């Protein structure tokens, strides 16, 4: 059986709405338009306009309203058409949601999910391509999830909605239409994944590759290429950026002794930087080679197809990085 990520997200929303009347959806075009990317398709019809709310294009206002509703005990799922627009509302995510349970000493909790596509899509240029993974994962009080497969999408979104704390849920537009095999267990409405746990997508012994979201697929492709050249790569799908599953990452690196981190976002203070620091802190003596970071180029996203391709990791880049980490020779890159 197969299921697209879009269907996985849609079914997770559907099931959680049907299980808990306190769950409701809000955001731009989530209702009558069926979602800008059709993630909420059919839900207005099924649950009515009281539980699927089309908002004006006013992120600060509707996000604040969502957080307030969560203070009161509802379980809002707030869609950002893309996470780029979450910057308009970021004060509510950080100051109103993330810090609330702490500064009220538990008096007011905030069971809310902020979700939507994050990071680069195709040809949408500088203002519509940013990955907010590292920013949100920087902030205590938030849980930050990023699914890759349909299994992830279902299990993590259901976990996020059931969770009593604020969750930032970072999807990827390009993955929405991608199909993944899916088991009966995952299709069961009780299915749920733990927050804070990574998944070993592929076992290996020579090198560890960490990735999240779309880059997990690239890492798996790279591992396939590498296996043909006799390098056995272990691919970790992070799933949760905060809490980060340091135990799983370090266990893997202690086994493989080499680490390549992969992400589409900007490198400085990125996901890879933290993973590198965590491994240096906890497993320094196991490391047999410098950690290799593969990340988005440290530039705003260009529009032109050739530049855009250069600005985000390709499978080849991962293969090259692994080879460097394994001290194999790498083809010389084109001069920049």
């Amino acid at each position: 059986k197969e299921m697209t990520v879009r269907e996985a997200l849609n079914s997770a929303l559907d099931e959680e709405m049907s299980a808990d009347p306190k769950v409701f959806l809000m955001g731009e075009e989530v209702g009558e338009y069926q979602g800008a990317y059709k993630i909420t398709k059919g839900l207005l019809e099924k649950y009515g306009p009281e539980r699927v709310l089309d908002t004006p294009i006013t992120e600060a206002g509707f996000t604040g309203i969502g957080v307030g509703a969560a203070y009161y005990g509802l379980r809002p799922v707030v869609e950002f058409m893309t996470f780029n627009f979450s910057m308009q509302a970021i004060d509510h995510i950080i100051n109103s949601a993330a810090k609330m349970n702490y500064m009220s000493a538990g008096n007011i909790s905030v069971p809310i999910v902020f979700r939507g596509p994050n990071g680069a899509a195709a040809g949408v240029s500088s203002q519509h391509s940013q990955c907010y993974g590292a920013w949100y994962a920087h902030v205590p009080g938030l849980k930050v999830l990023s699914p890759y497969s349909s299994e992830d999408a279902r299990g993590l979104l259901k976990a996020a909605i059931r969770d009593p704390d604020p969750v930032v849920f970072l999807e990827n537009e390009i993955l929405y239409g991608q199909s993944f095999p899916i088991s009966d267990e995952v299709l069961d409405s009780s299915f749920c994944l733990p927050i804070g746990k990574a998944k070993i997508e592929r076992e290996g012994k020579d090198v560890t590759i960490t990735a999240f979201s779309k880059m997990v697929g690239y890492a798996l492709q790279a591992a396939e290429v590498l296996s043909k050249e006799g390098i056995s790569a272990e691919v970790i799908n992070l799933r949760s950026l905060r809490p980060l599953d340091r135990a799983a990452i370090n266990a893997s690196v202690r086994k493989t002794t080499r680490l390549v981190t992969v992400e589409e976002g900007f490198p400085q203070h990125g996901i890879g930087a933290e993973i590198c620091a965590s491994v240096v802190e906890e497993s320094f003596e196991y490391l047999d080679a410098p950690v290799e970071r593969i990340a988005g180029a440290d530039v705003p996203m260009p529009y032109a197809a050739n530049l855009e391709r250069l600005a985000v990791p390709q499978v080849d880049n991962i293969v090259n990085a692994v080879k460097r980490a394994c001290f194999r020779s790498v083809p010389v890159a084109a001069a920049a």
Partner: protein
Amino acid sequence: GPTFTVETSVPFVGHRCEPPSREVETTAKELMGFFRDMSLMRRMEIAADALYKAKLIRGFCHLYDGQEAVAVGMEAAITRKDAIITAYRDHCIFLSRGGNLVETFAELMGRRAGCSNGKGGSMHFYKKEGGFFGGHGIVGAQVPLGCGLAFAQKYLREETVTFAMYGDGAANQGQLFEALNISALWDLPAILICENNHYGMGTAEWRAAKSPAYYKRGDYVPGLKVDGMDAFAVKQACKFAKEHALKNGPIILEMDTYRYHGHSMSDPGSTYRTRDEISNVRQERDPIERVRKLILLHDLASVAELKDIEKEIRKEVDNAIAEAKESPLPDPSELFTDIFVKGCGTEVYGVERKENKILI
């Protein structure tokens, strides 16, 4: 006791609505209650000032003295099932929602017995069970949050309303207009209370707003201008607004009020306004003196009895401070509690991450 009516100091001014009558029903008990509650608030804030100067309170500390009529008048019109949310000037609202003095002073001094166990401080008082949702440090942010509370009340069909309080400075914040539009579209039972104390920090209202007629700033949303120094006007307006909001959605109440203290403790409060201005308000419009006069006028208590009440309050406050001082600092382990409702079994790090981490 028997009810009688008092007249509000000045007529209400309506915007897109017919204002309520100036005749407000009350009882002796209510009048005496207003006197007591406002006097307690006043005394509490004065004591906080002293504690700050004694360095027992740190950071920001925004006092409410002068504005007490808004807190008590609002509370008199509603129930604890109605919700209130405000900004950082939150001590007295906390009190009006059932918080006590010890929780207040302990929080201000960062002690375990504080309403936020000492973790929130002056700006972060909460009492969900009393319908009080804070206490917010970011100017204007509480307005959409309040509209969200109103959304939940409507969603749950509770027939209750939310009062979202903000200052004249906050009234220019864009998110307020965004939340108001949504509230109007969705008919949310949200009442926006603009406490116009005429200054946002050192900026006079007219320097920050092209149109300082805050009750009209909702444009297509009705509004009412209210003497916020008159607890009865506040009560009347809040009753009116609650009825309106349940039937028709949002409404703005502009409370014409005044803060006697500076903005926060570092602001002497005298560089951007004259001492004359302040003492004039104290003499002409003080909310407690107004109620004292009404009590004497209606012969509900004597001058001496009122003085006695004030003395009692003074003692009450002193005792609460003493008790709060007895409360220890939070246990160091509290650094790591309340980050989440539900931990994930992963490590959380202190400053020295190698040495100082726990699993939550």
